[in-house]
């Protein structure tokens, strides 16, 4: 699908950037006049993906998180979040609800939230190379917006 608009950014895997990235993505897609619910869903899913980079991919180090956001045709938004961290050994297992390697304060629900709040979640990963998560959501048509 053709990209109508794009922004990319790279941030350090400092946990303070969790809020920065979700707010930046929300601000970018606001040109489509999404509903409050849609904005909340997108912010929550992006927050989960970025947190995974910080907590898992770059567990004991600070690395770079690459964010790319596209507005596609038909009000579809696509957010790609990529790291060059440790990678995921078993993607299927990592995506199971309640599975976590993050200790007792992590609920193991990051991917479950992404899948529930977005239309599609694609994960590509190679151990020791890194992980790419692509989140997509089609925004509703609202009276008054021009798509």
């Amino acid at each position: 699908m053709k990209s109508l608009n794009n922004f990319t950014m790279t941030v350090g895997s400092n946990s303070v950037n969790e809020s920065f990235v979700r707010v930046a993505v929300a601000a970018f897609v606001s040109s489509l006049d999404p509903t409050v619910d849609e904005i909340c869903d997108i912010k929550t899913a992006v927050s989960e993906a970025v947190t995974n980079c910080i907590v898992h991919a770059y567990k004991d180090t600070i690395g770079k998180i690459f964010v790319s956001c596209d507005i596609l045709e038909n009000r579809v938004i696509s957010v790609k979040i990529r790291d060059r961290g440790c990678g995921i050994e078993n993607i299927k297992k990592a995506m199971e609800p309640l599975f976590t390697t993050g200790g007792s304060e992590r609920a193991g629900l990051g991917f479950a939230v992404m899948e529930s709040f977005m239309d599609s979640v694609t994960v590509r990963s190679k151990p020791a190379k890194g992980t790419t998560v692509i989140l997509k959501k089609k925004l509703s048509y609202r009276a008054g917006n021009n798509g």
Partner: protein
Amino acid sequence: MSVRTKLNGRVLTAYLEGEIDHHSAKIMRETIDREINAASPQMLVLDFKDVSFMDSSGIGLVMGRYKELKKCDGEMHIVNTAANITKVMKLAGLERLAKIGR
């Protein structure tokens, strides 16, 4: 993002404020646990009135405090959650651990 606490008899209320993510959950967790350990409350009320955003780190925060509370046989109530926060909590089935309401 911060948390204020108030102890009334054996009811501890924690007023959470701001956005709850992995970054902000840590300080909230430390503050609440310190109060739980000091007071051994019968009930912990988590007030979400001033929380505008929460991801699954908030679920971890609630579940972790539930475990702490069970050590002193306490109960948990969750109050004043906005629609977007209720949605995340329901996904995790938190209503099985705590009463969620006004």
